C-alpha cells in the first residue's frame, strides 16, 4: 500500500493529517499489519489534554495490547465513535480511519516524517 503524501508520519507508525490547527490521527498500514486483527480501540475522551509522545489510548488486537502515542500536543476535540462497533476499520482502511482529532496547541512533535521518509524507515 502506498503511503499518502497529504500527511506526516511518526516512528511509532501513526499518521497525522493537519488541516488548520486540527490534526487527525490514525495508524499506518504497516502498523495494522504488525498488530493483526484489531478487536478493541480504547481512546481518551473529548476534552482530554494530550502531550506529544504520551499515550492517547490503547489498541488491542486478538493477540496483544499496544499504546497509541500522541504525535503532537493539544486537546482531543473528537473521537471516532464508529471504532467501538467496527474496530476492524483500522485493518481494512487504515489511512482513511482517523482515531482522534487533536486541536493542536504547541508545535509538532520532533521527528515527524513525510511519506518518503516513512517508507524509507520501513525498508
Amino acid at each position, binding site marked *: 500500500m502506498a503511503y499518502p503524501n497529504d500527511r506526516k508520519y511518526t516512528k511509532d507508525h501513526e499518521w497525522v493529517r493537519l488541516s488548520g490547527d486540527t490534526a487527525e490521527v490514525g495508524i499506518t498500514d504497516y502498523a495494522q499489519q504488525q498488530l493483526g*486483527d484489531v*478487536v478493541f480501540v*480504547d481512546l481518551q475522551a473529548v476534552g482530554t489534554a494530550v502531550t506529544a509522545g504520551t499515550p492517547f489510548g490503547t489498541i*488491542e488486537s*486478538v*493477540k496483544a495490547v499496544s499504546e497509541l502515542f500522541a504525535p503532537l500536543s493539544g486537546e482531543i476535540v473528537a473521537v471516532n465513535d464508529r471504532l467501538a462497533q467496527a474496530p476492524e476499520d483500522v485493518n481494512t482502511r487504515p489511512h482513511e480511519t482517523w482515531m482522534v482529532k487533536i486541536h493542536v496547541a504547541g508545535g509538532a512533535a520532533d521527528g515527524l516524517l513525510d511519506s518518503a521518509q516513512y517508507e524509507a524507515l520501513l525498508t
Partner: protein
Amino acid sequence: MSDTAATAALKLTPLHARHVASGARMVPYAGWEMPVEYSGITAEHLAVRTRAGVFDVSHMGEIEIAGKDAVKAVQHLTCNDAGKLKMGQAQYSALLTPEGTFVDDVLVYRLGPNHFMIVVNAANAARAADWITAQAKATGDAAVVDSSARYALIAIQGPAALDTVQPLTGADLASVRPYWFTYGEVSQARALISRTGYTGEDGFEIFVPPNMADRVWQSLLQAGHAAGVVPCGLGARDTLRLEAAMRLYGNDIDDTTTPVEAGLSGIVGWNKPTFVGAERLRAQKASGPERVLAGLEMLDRGIARHGYPVLKDGARVGTVTSGTQTPFLKKAIAMAYLPPSLATPGTRVDVDVRGRASAATVVPLPFYKRPRTV
C-alpha cells in the same frame, strides 16, 4: 548483531520454507520460528469453527518409552491411568513434580503392549525428556528415546477435517474414535493418524516423516481447497483452544499449579496405587484447593489478559491466566485462578485492566462446545 544471533538459534520445522513462501507471519515461539498467522487470526479461527484449518505443530516433542517395564514407568511418571489405555488409544495426562505441580501436560499414546509415545509441549521438550528419562530409570527396564526429530506433526481441525483427509488415505478414518489413532499412508507418506487436537473441533493430528511434511501439507490444502480449508498459525490455535478452555502450559498451568486447582482432576488416576505427585494431590483433593481455575466473561468494555489481577470489592483475589476477545463467540473471555468461594458461575468480580476495574462475571468452562452430530 544480537538479532542475527537470536534468529540463528531458532529451530525450524520441516515446513518452515513453505510457511515463508506462503507469506505467513513468522514469530519466535518456544525456541522455534513458527507461523503466527496466515490470513489473519479471526479468519483462521472462523475457518476452523465452520470448515477446517491446517496447522504445523511440528514443534511439539515426541518421547518414546519401550521395554519390559514400560507400563510401570508410564504409570509412575504420568498422573492419568495409562493402564486403561488399549493399543491404538491416546490419553490426556500430565507429568507432575513430587509436589503435584505440572512439569508438563501431555498426550500419552499406546503404540504397543510395552511401547508408549508421550507428546510434550515444545517449550518443555528438553526438560520433559530429561525428567522422563530420570523417572523411567528408577522404575526398571524401559528405554527412553527422544524421537522428536523423526516426526513432523500436522493438525487438521474443523467440521470438514474428516472429509478432507479421507480421500488421501486408505485408512478408514470414520471408524477412528476421538482419542484413538490408526496407522496408514496419507498422500503416500507413512503416518500415525490421531483423532485429537487443540481447538475444540473434530479433527486429526498426523505424524509423518519430516521429509514428507511438505507433500502432506500441500495435499491437505489442495484436497480441502473447495471446502474452504485454510492454513492457520499459532495465533488462531491459541484463541481456539481458549474458547474450548483447553489449558496452555506456561499460562494456565505450570510448576506452581496442580491438576486439582486447574480443574483437571479428571485426568488424575485416583485409583492407581501411586505416581509422582500422588500424595500431594490426594491431600489437596481431601482438603479442597485454595484456588481453582474459573471462566470469566467481561461485562464492561475491555479485554482481560494474562497476568491481570482479579479483584473483589477492590481487593486482589486472583490472577488472569489467559484472555482474549474471541473471534467466534465475539466476547471478551478469560480464565483466572480464584478462591473456590468466588468461582461459582454468576459471581461478579472485577478485572484490573491496566489500572481500570472492569466488571466481569464467572461463567462455566468451556466457553465453547462444538455441536455434536449423532
